[in-house]
């Protein structure tokens, strides 16, 4: 053995330590990997040795290698070995290695549980500290469950160093093991007032993090935090608290009002940017509420933000904060437009993108043109296609937001779109195209202009499409071709456009675009044909037909099926037309009829919502399978799939006039009956076919004086000027127009969301838009629910902390402290489990003053039966004891049983059992009893009218000491609050107005307000007091729970049978029933119990059947029908409120089952 050790130690002297390793790695830059693998081999050898120092050194080196990216998971077991070293030096390294490389998938992690537990209870605080630190990095649900209780104990450690670590790690424990939150929370809360600032800030940290995720459970802590906020000077803590308030204010608007002042003070006084930033972030949403929206203050904040947040390193934050302000106070930000525009020049992309976001929210009718102009300049300057694309999408977003709300001149917008097509290499060609289509279709007044621009685009198609085949921008040609074809009657130089479309170059375009070309050139051809025929130019008409026949074959040869099919189909058609033309038959009318039909914008989802008429089988063929001409409607899905429905069109094949008229009639009828069909004007019949009804558009002044001389491309800038002039003019005519608009509105269909309604800036748009509000199916659910991620780790922590702890919720870990009090005089009850532990306790006792204290507390919770007996002769009792420690509970139970048997006939009642005596109106409940050297307090509750209830408490001092300065405090819940004197905070207790000499009892009353009474409530509370005896005075506390049962909200109210019958007939009562078996007491007895414990009165009784009635303090009627069978009782209840009823019945069931 000794020899082995000697060998190990000698080896060790030649081992590399960490420094050697680092140096070695630095010296082997060339063959680092090789060197390291060699080192790892060495380390493996070292790990095999018994000497813990060698192992620790090896693990230390491994930790370094792990950082360099080498896998060291194979050494997990060795790490645990090092963790369990007794020497701090090694332990520290072991825990460090573990914290760096352990994670939930590490299988040996479960082996650490006991080691960690040992370290946690180590007398050396640094052992404990290092274990806590390590654990915080690799805690798993299992570890959290097993160690939660140990850590909770450490939260009350004597050393603040341990306390703060324990408090912090609890957060991690909560996340992994949410069940621990409720049992640990009271202690965590205590730590908010820890004398050590480190512990306090740790507690603030943890609670704030918890509260941010589930704020509603922490509302009751608001006053405490408010106090902390106004008293703390630690910026780190303040930031956390303010963040917490930020999460709470949306739930409790009154809080916001209170916060404004201290936060504003902080904003003005602090020199810390971080604090300022946090304050501003929190204040802004508060100011949203109309009462508080004093724009001046907001302006002030914005200014402040400005000066502080415009150095380059934090500019980002300034913009971020602005975007928050923008949501509530757009105007205050708008004044800084120029600065924000400057940010677009920033080198940093994240700043540029933030600035773009801001601009999106800043536009108004007034500044849209200006902002977009600036953006256009940036588009030209922008480096890198990603940013340019971003700009492009932003421009389109900005302009098209809320149904083109801010666009007053659509000619300008079309020009912008056309200018955007000059962008090279953008991916967003389809976006521009979609916009062009949308605008041209929806803004009728702009069609003429749009068509002329599109014709120009088609003419210059070579500029757009020339670069590359994959160029995204060529998508705009799709839109251009379609617009020119569809609205061909607006086209001036139709021939030229048609020729442009027939150029051989077109065949290099992508297939789906060619297909649209082919389709639309026929439309164009049709309209030219018509023109020529009407003008009697037969020659010209034949020429154009010949042109088509000459050029179409190039499309017939296309590789794209769609193009080929359409082209050959159309080619045949045109050849047929040519034949007719040669025979001098007029054909134009018939050709144009191919494309006749009104085009209306339809809501994207409207199609789905059209109800299927009765007797219609959608799957059956109506006629023969659809002819080729109908396939025209199909547009390539790939690009405009979301647009498709909007563009659905009605086309009719050649049919005779009569049929046409008949169909028109049918369709009109259909449209009239269809609520989802959006009519473009109040009188669509008149302009039905060829005239696109422009008359009914309000401000149709299309300024045709616009100089369009720039060959090829228009300049949007001109519109800015023109627009200004127009606006000026408009202003003069304002009054006149207003009247007109009003008229206009009346006549409009409801679903037309007119622009005029929202023009707060008095700028009427130049063109009218058919705006469609998107419709949702009626039964569509609001999607709020979907927002929550089911995998959200914080969701599990959404726990109501005000609810009292149930026994099942206690931490499942063995207790460190024993509930037994060694000195207690009343340990007569047999406590087997405890006794076995006593000796251990005794050994430790001398060391552990701290624990002694704890024990005392528990002792206090014990009950002396004496006190109760006295009460039970007078009052009924329900005992609800605060039973924190399971062991003390055991004891109590055994006592209770004992007690029961002692005074059987009198039926002293505990835990809700009943008393027979037809006694008083009061239903006493012992809230808690305390015994300290023979003293007892019995606390009883009683409730009174309205939404207020009064709780009467009898304090009885059974000890030999004098009790004074008693203060009763209750932890308010959202629903129930103790009524405190004006000006005191929620955390102040209410002093009991008397002192208690030994052996004296007295009664005090406390008022509570309740909001809802449909559910039973439990409130936790504490009674603090000073015990004064010969040895001096000590401060003591006693925890209790107040139980407000539903029955306690009922007031016994007599009711006559006819009124009762009427009530039952009224029908608006909810019904519920229960059945309880094994009832042996007489019916009379039973009714008496219900009357007494649940505050009912008997209305009528027939044999073993009775009707009963009661009213709640908030006026709910409760009717019961009680029937007794052989061994069972059934209770049918009716009540205005179903929750109240079911809760009442549950309570009743409990009572009855004890009979």
């Amino acid at each position, binding site marked *: 053995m000794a020899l082995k050790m000697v060998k190990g130690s000698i080896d060790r002297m030649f081992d590399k330590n960490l420094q050697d390793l680092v140096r070695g790695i630095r010296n082997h830059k060339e063959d680092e990997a090789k060197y390291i693998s060699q080192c790892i081999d060495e380390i493996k050898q070292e790990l095999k040795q018994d000497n813990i120092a060698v192992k620790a050194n090896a693990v230390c080196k491994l930790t370094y290698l792990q*950082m360099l990216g080498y896998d060291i998971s194979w050494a997990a077991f060795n790490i645990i070995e090092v963790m369990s070293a007794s020497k701090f030096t090694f332990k520290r390294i072991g825990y460090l290695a573990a914290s760096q490389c352990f994670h939930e998938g590490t299988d040996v992690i479960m082996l650490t549980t006991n080691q960690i537990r040992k370290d946690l209870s180590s007398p050396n605080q640094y052992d404990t500290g290092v274990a806590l630190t390590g654990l915080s990095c690799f805690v798993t649900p299992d570890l959290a469950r097993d160690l939660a209780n140990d850590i909770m104990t450490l939260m009350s450690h004597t050393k603040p160093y341990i306390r703060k*670590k324990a408090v912090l790690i609890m957060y*991690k424990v909560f996340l992994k093991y949410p069940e621990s939150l409720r049992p640990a929370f009271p202690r965590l809360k205590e730590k908010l007032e820890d004398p050590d600032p480190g512990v306090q800030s740790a507690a603030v940290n943890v609670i704030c993090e918890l509260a941010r995720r589930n704020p509603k459970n922490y509302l009751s802590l608001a006053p405490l935090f408010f106090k902390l906020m106004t008293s703390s000077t630690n910026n*780190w803590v303040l930031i956390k608290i303010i963040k917490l308030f930020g999460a709470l204010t949306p739930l409790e608007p009154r809080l916001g009002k209170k916060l404004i002042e201290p936060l504003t003070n902080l904003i003005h006084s602090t020199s810390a940017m971080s604090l300022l930033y946090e304050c501003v972030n929190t204040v802004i949403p508060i100011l949203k509420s109309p009462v508080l929206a004093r724009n001046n203050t907001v302006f002030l904040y914005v200014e402040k933000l400005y000066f502080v947040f415009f150095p380059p390193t934090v500019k980002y934050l300034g913009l971020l904060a602005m975007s928050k302000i923008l949501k509530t106070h757009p105007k205050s930000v708008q004044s800084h437009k120029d600065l924000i525009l400057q940010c677009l020049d920033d080198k940093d992309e994240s700043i540029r993108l933030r600035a773009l976001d801001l601009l999106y929210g800043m536009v108004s009718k007034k500044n849209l043109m200006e902002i977009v102009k600036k953006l256009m300049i940036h588009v030209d300057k922008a480096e890198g296609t990603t940013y340019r694309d971003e700009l492009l999408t932003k421009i389109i977003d900005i302009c098209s937001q809320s149904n083109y709300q801010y666009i007053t001149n659509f000619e300008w917008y079309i020009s912008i779109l056309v200018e955007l097509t000059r962008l090279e290499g953008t991916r967003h060609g389809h976006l521009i195209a979609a916009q062009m289509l949308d605008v041209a279709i929806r803004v009728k007044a702009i069609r003429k202009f749009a068509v002329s621009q599109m014709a120009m685009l088609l003419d210059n198609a070579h500029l757009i499409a020339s670069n590359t085949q994959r160029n995204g921008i060529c998508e705009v040609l799709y839109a251009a071709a379609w617009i020119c074809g569809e609205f061909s009657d607006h086209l001036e130089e139709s021939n030229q456009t048609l020729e442009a479309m027939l150029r051989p170059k077109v065949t290099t375009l992508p297939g789906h675009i060619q297909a649209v070309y082919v389709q639309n050139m026929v439309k164009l051809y049709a309209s030219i044909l018509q023109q020529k025929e009407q003008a009697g130019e037969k020659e010209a008409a034949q020429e154009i037909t010949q042109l088509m026949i000459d050029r179409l074959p190039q499309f017939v040869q296309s590789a794209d099926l769609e193009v080929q099919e359409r082209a050959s189909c159309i080619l045949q058609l045109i050849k047929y037309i040519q034949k007719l033309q040669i025979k001098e038959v007029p054909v134009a009318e018939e050709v144009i009829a191919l494309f006749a039909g009104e085009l209306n914008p339809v809501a994207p989802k409207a199609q789905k919502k059209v109800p299927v008429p009765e007797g219609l089988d959608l799957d059956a063929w109506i006629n023969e399978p659809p002819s080729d001409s109908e396939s025209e409607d199909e547009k390539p899905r790939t690009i405009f799939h979301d647009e498709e429905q909007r563009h659905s069109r009605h086309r009719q094949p050649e049919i005779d006039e009569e049929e046409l008229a008949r169909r028109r009639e049918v369709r009109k009828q259909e449209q009239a009956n269809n609520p989802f069909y959006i009519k473009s004007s109040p009188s669509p019949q008149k302009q039905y076919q060829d005239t696109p009804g422009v008359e009914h558009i309000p401000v149709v002044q299309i300024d045709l004086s616009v100089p369009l001389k720039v060959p090829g491309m228009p300049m949007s800038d001109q519109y800015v000027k023109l627009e200004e002039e127009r606006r000026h003019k408009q202003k003069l005519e304002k009054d006149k127009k207003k009247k007109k608009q009003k008229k206009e509105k009346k006549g409009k269909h409801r679903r037309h969301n007119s622009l005029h309604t929202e023009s707060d800036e008095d700028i009427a748009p130049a063109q009218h838009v058919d705006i469609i509000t998107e419709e949702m199916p009626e039964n569509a659910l609001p999607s709020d629910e979907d927002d929550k991620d089911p995998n959200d780790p914080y969701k599990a922590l959404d726990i109501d902390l005000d609810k009292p702890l149930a026994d099942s919720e206690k931490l499942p870990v063995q207790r460190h402290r024993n509930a037994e009090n060694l000195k207690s005089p009343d340990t007569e009850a047999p406590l087997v489990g405890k006794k076995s532990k006593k000796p251990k306790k005794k050994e430790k006792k001398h060391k552990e003053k701290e624990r002694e204290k704890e024990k005392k507390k528990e002792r206090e919770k014990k009950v002396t039966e004496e006190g109760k007996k006295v009460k039970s002769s007078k009052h009924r009792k329900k005992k609800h004891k605060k039973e924190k420690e399971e062991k003390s509970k055991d004891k109590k139970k055994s006592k209770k049983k004992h007690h029961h048997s002692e005074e059987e006939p009198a039926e002293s009642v505990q835990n809700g059992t009943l008393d027979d005596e037809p006694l008083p109106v009061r239903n006493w409940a012992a809230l808690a009893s305390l015994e300290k050297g023979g003293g007892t307090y019995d606390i009883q509750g009683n409730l009174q009218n309205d939404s207020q209830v009064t709780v009467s408490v009898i304090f009885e001092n059974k000890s030999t000491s004098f009790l004074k300065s008693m203060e009763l405090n209750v932890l308010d819940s959202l629903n129930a609050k103790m009524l405190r004197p004006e000006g005191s905070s929620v955390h102040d207790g209410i002093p009991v107005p008397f002192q208690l000499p030994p052996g004296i009892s007295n009664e005090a009353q406390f008022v509570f307000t309740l909001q809802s009474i449909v559910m039973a409530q439990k409130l936790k509370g504490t009674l603090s007091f000073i015990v004064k005896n010969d040895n001096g005075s000590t401060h003591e506390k006693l925890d209790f729970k107040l139980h407000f049962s539903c029955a306690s909200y009922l007031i016994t109210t007599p009711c006559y049978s006819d009124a009762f019958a009427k009530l039952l007939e009224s029908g608006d009562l909810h019904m519920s029933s229960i059945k309880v078996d094994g009832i042996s007491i007489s019916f009379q007895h039973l009714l008496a119990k219900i009357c007494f414990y649940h505050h009912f009165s008997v209305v009528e009784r027939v044999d073993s059947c009775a009707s009963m009635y009661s009213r709640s303090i908030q006026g709910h009627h409760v009717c019961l029908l009680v029937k007794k069978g052989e061994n069972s009782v059934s209770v049918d209840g009716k009540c205005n409120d179903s929750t109240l009823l079911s809760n009442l019945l549950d309570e009743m069931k409990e009572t009855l089952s004890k009979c």
Partner: protein
Amino acid sequence: MRFMLLFSRQGKLRLQKWYLASSEKEKKKMVRELMQVVLARKPKMCSFLEWRDLKVVYKRYASLYFCCAIEGQDNELITLELIHRYVELLDKYFGSVCELDIIFNFEKAYFILDEFLMGGEIQDTSKKSVLKAIEQADLLQEEDESPRSVLEEMGLA
């Protein structure tokens, strides 16, 4: 805070602390990605960037980048202050710290960080108390080591 990284201008990781345990593979990927993003940034750019669903706060001290990833709602500026505080602590402990100090005493750098932050939350806002805790722990370590002589270790003492 999700994690903290220290890396050099050359893209060598000097320290990493993960407050949300994840697998090695994932960690490596994130480190590589983030290093690339941060190193590509120019000196005058702002200290914050949006990365994945996190916000990254970084600051450069000499050749070392200190880089923290925080969640959306966290305060960026306090994180910046936190980085600075950590640098101050290192500085106090090592006495004008340089990159080499951190390379050769990387475990100490971790210990200091662990005393300062725990589970991603600030543990103690007072520099003094952090340093005191470290000093005392070091003292304990020396006590462990001091009585040991080669002879003792060989079991001959």
